[in-house]
């Protein structure tokens, strides 16, 4: 008898509980203590896994070709996965890996909430969800799943998720920054049955048509997701006919258990056991912005500490104790979203080969303190831009892993990694004369953090999708009433280091063929670095400033064939808007919430680069010459931060290093550092005075007030570290 094959007589809910019980009891997924099928016939076993993964990949490719959304077609914001009846991921395509486990939560939620009885789970049914408290990250991440029945038995689920470009929120786009509670985030589909008999219900499609600014994206994407699921379902059913149902059930569970074991082994191989700690901060600058409601009308600073415990058995425990409370803003995250962040980071650093599935997730766990932004205790909290805090949080995780890799000698695996990449969202009147809404997913190709052995990836990485890309401008322009005047490397956007952080790019647009376009960008840390460097590397600068010129004289400039702005320029003090254009100029810090633009206006936005690795003054001067000549680094930063002395050859328009002067300059920098250095004990003593006096700016003071009140553990540790009186409070 196949002991891992569930009893058909019991319901799904009982099956789910039974699986959990077996996991608790044996420590192995679904009580699978030996990988019997793998041992008996490894070729057959591997062949099944290969087929299932291939089916998911092929289904995703099909769905991408159906989609109307450049987010999906052009930059691949989609993932397809196959699940067990209880909702555990067996195999998955590439793409936005973050959603593999969020979809798992959605399936489990339906089971736990009695969907078998009502609304019923029948062959041909289609379920959809974008409620993060049920299982997704944010409203635009709309998932569609279908049950897979073999004869009368539910044997699994096929699920597909895509990031929608327009969700009908208070401002156009998908990541609706201005949502301060659930009620303005856009259209919610809360674990609903949206289709029957393999078709989407007409009333669901009507609801989409009537509640979205640009329904075609979501509608075609849902059709694409359903088509992908049906394709996967039908192929899986055929495969079950070939291999037999019992074999399928046991083998697919063995895949997950193997994935769990592989994750543990990988941790044992790559990491040094012990306790790792990291920290980052996130600045939120919104006070007084148009549309901010009284409850959320303040600037905030978020403290995000992370403690990672690596056990000798390879188990990892992440603890966010000490982080801040949820707030009236859109950056809160649900446990489902945090799962997503964990999963996508694991798939990029450890869980990328062999059985990539929920096993890796089972080999890790997290403490997400209730009431914090990681686990809000109220489901009406907004999560529309949860990536704002999520990415910095898992950026720490990536750096902690990298510390482990470096300690163990795997320097080539060290990756300062993920960064925040704020998105431009817009809507209004399109160039076709109709209404439109769009999230510009070109943000999916920021600069990565540096690596242990080389520079970060320039314009080619974001944490949520390792298959990062920015797409073609000619494709984006078909969906927006704006023309690119330029898309250029954003100088100095990568953190300096002996290995430089990857740089991002700046887009500059001329608004065209419209009387009204509203631009709303998603949140990103302002004034505070949210992704650090490593081993002496600097963090990447924050890039959250937006530039507009209204009522510009661009037509006059064009008529006179005068130079136009194509980038913000390489002078940090004077932008090309300032130098070249006349009109009503504005620089907005923090999210861009402002009155609409019209044809002839200009808008510029930069994405984010990654942190550096190693001391910037150890960077090879010849690499810096290459950086300067190609616009990755300005001569100013090269000389100031990297301490190289460069000389410009006007005739050849080339740069060269003055080696002797560089050596001397670097020596001087080292000496300056030594002169400036003080004993840690002295520094702590002086800072302690400031802490005792609560000598902080408002945001820092409020941050400590919040974190000390929400976490007694943090408060105690804080007092202990600074040797404060027991009754000390903020």
């Amino acid at each position, binding site marked *: 008898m196949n002991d891992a094959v569930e009893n058909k007589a019991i319901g799904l809910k009982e099956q789910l509980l039974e699986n959990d019980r077996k996991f608790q009891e044996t420590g192995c997924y679904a009580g699978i203590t030996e990988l019997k099928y793998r041992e008996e016939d490894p070729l057959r076993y591997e062949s099944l896994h290969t*087929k299932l993964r291939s089916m998911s990949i092929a289904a995703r490719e099909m769905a991408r070709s159906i989609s109307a*959304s450049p987010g999906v*077609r052009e930059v691949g914001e989609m993932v397809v996965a196959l699940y067990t009846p209880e909702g555990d991921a067996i195999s998955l395509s590439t793409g936005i890996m973050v959603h593999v486990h969020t979809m798992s939560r959605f399936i489990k939620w339906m089971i736990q909430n009695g969907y078998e009885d009502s609304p019923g789970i029948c062959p041909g049914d289609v379920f959809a969800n974008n409620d993060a408290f049920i299982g997704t990250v944010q409203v635009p991440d709309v998932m569609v799943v279908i049950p897979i029945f073999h004869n009368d038995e539910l044997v699994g689920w096929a699920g597909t998720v895509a990031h929608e470009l327009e969700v009908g929120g208070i401002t156009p786009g998908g990541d609706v920054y201005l949502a301060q509670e659930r009620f303005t985030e856009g259209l919610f589909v809360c674990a609903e049955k949206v289709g029957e008999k393999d078709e989407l219900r007409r009333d669901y499609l009507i609801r989409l048509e009537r509640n979205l600014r640009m329904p075609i994206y979501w509608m075609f994407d849902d059709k694409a997701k359903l088509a992908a699921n*049906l394709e996967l379902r039908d192929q899986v059913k055929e495969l079950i006919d070939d291999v037999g149902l019992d074999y399928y059930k046991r083998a697919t569970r063995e895949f997950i258990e193997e994935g769990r074991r592989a994750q543990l082994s990988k941790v044992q191989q790559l990491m040094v056991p012990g306790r790792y700690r990291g920290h980052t901060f996130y600045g939120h600058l919104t006070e007084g912005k148009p549309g901010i409601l009284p409850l959320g009308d303040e600037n905030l600073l978020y403290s995000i500490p992370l403690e990672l415990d690596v056990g000798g058995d390879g188990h990892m425990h992440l603890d966010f104790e000490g982080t801040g409370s949820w707030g009236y803003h859109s950056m809160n995250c649900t446990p489902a979203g945090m799962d997503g962040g964990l999963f996508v980071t694991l798939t990029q650093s450890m869980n990328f080969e062999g059985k990539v599935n929920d096993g890796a997730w089972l080999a890790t766990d997290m403490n997400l303190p209730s009431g914090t932004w990681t686990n809000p205790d109220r489901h009406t909290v907004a999560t529309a831009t949860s990536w704002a805090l999520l990415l910095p949080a898992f950026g720490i995780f990536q750096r902690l892993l990298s510390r482990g890799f470096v300690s163990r000698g795997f320097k080539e695996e060290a990756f300062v990694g993920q960064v925040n990449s704020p998105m431009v969202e817009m809507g209004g009147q399109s160039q076709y004369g109709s209404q439109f809404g769009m999230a510009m997913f070109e943000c999916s190709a920021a600069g990565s953090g540096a690596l242990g052995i080389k520079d970060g990836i320039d314009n*080619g990485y974001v944490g949520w999708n390792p298959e990062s*890309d*920015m797409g*073609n401008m000619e494709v984006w322009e078909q969906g927006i009433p704006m023309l690119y005047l330029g898309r250029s490397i954003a100088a100095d956007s990568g953190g300096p280091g002996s290995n430089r952080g990857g740089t991002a790019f700046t887009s500059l647009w001329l608004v065209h063929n419209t009387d009204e376009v509203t631009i709303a960008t998603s949140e990103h840390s302002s004034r505070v670095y949210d992704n650090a460097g490593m081993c002496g590397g600097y963090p990447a600068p924050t890039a959250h400033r937006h530039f507009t010129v209204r009522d510009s004289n661009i037509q006059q400039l064009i008529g006179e064939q005068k*130079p136009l702005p*194509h980038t913000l320029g390489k002078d940090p003090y004077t932008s090309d808007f300032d130098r070249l254009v006349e009109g009503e100029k504005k620089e907005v810090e923090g999210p861009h919430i402002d009155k609409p633009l019209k044809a002839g206006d200009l808008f510029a936005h930069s994405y984010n680069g990654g942190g550096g690795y190693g001391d910037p003054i150890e960077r090879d001067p010849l690499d810096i010459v290459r950086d300067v000549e190609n616009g990755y680094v300005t001569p100013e930063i090269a000389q100031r931060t990297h301490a190289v002395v460069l000389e410009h050859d006007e005739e050849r328009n080339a740069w060269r290093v003055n080696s002797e002067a560089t050596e001397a300059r670097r020596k001087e920098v080292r000496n300056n550092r030594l002169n400036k250095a003080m004993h840690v004990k002295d520094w702590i003593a002086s800072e302690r005075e400031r802490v005792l006096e609560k000598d902080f700016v408002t945001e820092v003071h409020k941050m400590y007030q919040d974190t000390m009140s929400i976490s007694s553990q943090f408060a105690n540790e804080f007092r202990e570290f600074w040797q404060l009186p027991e009754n000390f409070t903020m």
Partner: protein
Amino acid sequence: MKKTTPLVLGIDAGGTMTDTILVDKQGNFAVGKAPTTPNYESEGFIESAQDATNIWNLDINKTFEELEVALYSGTGMLNTLLSRTGKRIGLIVTRGMEDAVLMGRGLQSWAGYSYEDRLHAVTHAHPDPLVPLSRVRGVTERIDHFGQVVIPAYEHEAVSGVKELLEQDIEGLCVCCMYSHVNPEHELQIGEAARRVFAEQDIDIPIYLSHHVRPIIREQSRLNSTLIEAYATSQGREQLLGVETAAKQHGFSNSMQTMLSYGGLADVRYPRLHETMISGPVGGLLGARHVGELVGADSVIVSDMGGTSFDIGAITRGKVPIEDEPTLARFKLNLPTLAMDTIGAGGGTIVKVDPYTHKVSLGPESAGSVPGPVAMDMGGTEPTIADCDAIMGRLNPDNFLGGKVQLNVDKAKQVLKEKVADPLGVDVYEAAEGMVNMLEMEAKSSIESIISSRGVDPGEYHLMAYGGSGPLHMAEYSRGLGFKGVLSFPFAAAFSAFGCTTADYLHRHSQSVHIMTGPDSSDKDREEARRQINEIWSELDSQARSELISEGHETDAIVCEPFAMMRYTGQLEDVEVAAPVTKLESDEDLDKLTQAFEDLYEQINRSVSGYGTAGFTIMELGLNARVEKVKPELSRRPLGSKNPDPEAAKGKRSMYYNRAWHEAQLWEMDMLKPGNVLEGPAIVEHPATTLVIPAGDRVRVDEWTILHYEHGEDTQNSVGNVL
């Protein structure tokens, strides 16, 4: 002299060897081989052709006079691109796009990677640009996606940009403007300005306008195509014309053909030669499909190991997947291509051990044909895989290239000992096998990667192994992968060339459009749509016909098959719909076209994803112009004895395999007959290739004289012996 009438000559010039296949009307093959002569490819071409004609004792001039078709496909242009040894190009783009040469597409940092490496982000890296930023200039201009001029081109910037680029001694100028495929006005204007500057300075260098090279949406892909055309094809074109001249000097009266990436033949004067750059592997795919149809193996993984590279592709149920946006040398293109993957691994691959760290590595450099492996004694100083094979007795030192080259095994041994074995502290034979196994493991993992990324179930597929080095290493790179069957061919070395001979003349012409019809379209709109479609198809028809006629084809032989790239309005991906009629005479014909789209769409994407109420948009109109060509036949003979004829036996030789010496039976490939079974340890020799069968494995010859490689149940996996 043999009484045969040669019909088709196919030549495939690889990085190392130039392979020839000569096919006669009865379906007999003669395989010729000669080292590739990269500087004057025509020399290697004639030598290789001579090698083939010698086998049948034919006079080379008479053969060329009688030949109906000669086709030549080479990897010269691809190698130019891979080794970054192309022309010094200058580039003018829409101002603001200059950084595109560095930024590329984000996806170029991972495209073509395996599933694992796609996830494992630390492996991602952009390809090196073909043009440095210092040779890029912007011209202020903008055209929107409707084709309207929004910012007229600043001609003075074009003039100064061209002058600055000329100061940098450019050898070619590329121009790529936004939406030039919709309205080429600005590219033409910049091109004219450049010509005037050239004339003033008395400079004659080519200008490549992106809308001429590839008039398709997606500026980055268009830019890549244009740059590659300019960077890598001009030397290639001279070589092709040189090959044709050489053939004509020997009496050939037609024009030389070459192979396009989508599997058609084109005259060597074809204006968009970058479309031929992945043609070598394509030949193998076409050959595999042709053979597969004959022998009932319609799902095939092809694997071609030559001297420089290892190419892998998949044919599923007779269909070769077409990739619309393939990557070429990691650059994204908009060029329909028969899907293939390539890694740098072949007989000429150089093996290295770092003298300090003792890190062992393979290639990707190849010794090529010049200087070639050490054992060829032509000046090679770095040990290669072929040297390892010679040291292990797997290659016959007296019969390399049919005995034309005497291998100096002692020299190879000495170099391998000094550069690899001694630094590692191992025996020279152990070192040789370790390196060979490393190569085989790389090849195997690239097959595994195609299995994983293309959704292939090996149990339903045959593996075809060919190329000069394929049969030498196939035993290990195919072991344990679970294929339905593993096949090779007596003419394995020239299989790609053979594949090219199975192709038709096929040119594809297309034009970007934006034609919408939908439920709300008025009769007038529909009539206008039909008018536009008919007009473009008709223009393309005359363009295609005149191109083929100029290549010497008869008007009557040309068949033009129009197509439309269609989508539901709002979508971003097209489906290529073959036109149900060549001209839309009536309103019903327009319905027939949309119906054909819906039928095909449903077949590809399932009916649930259809959305007729959104209307239909045609993004591109095109046609495939085809002229059928004579094709070679394989001859089928009854199965005979299991034992080869005694004259096929060539004695025995010691062969090192699995860390031991074995007495291998030697066989002559061309003497094998249908029904023969060869048990390992054995080596089957052919002037152009060598098949190695380790102990425990065997090879069966079928009625088509195809070789079926069968792995023994218990044979030790030699790949475990990696250093």
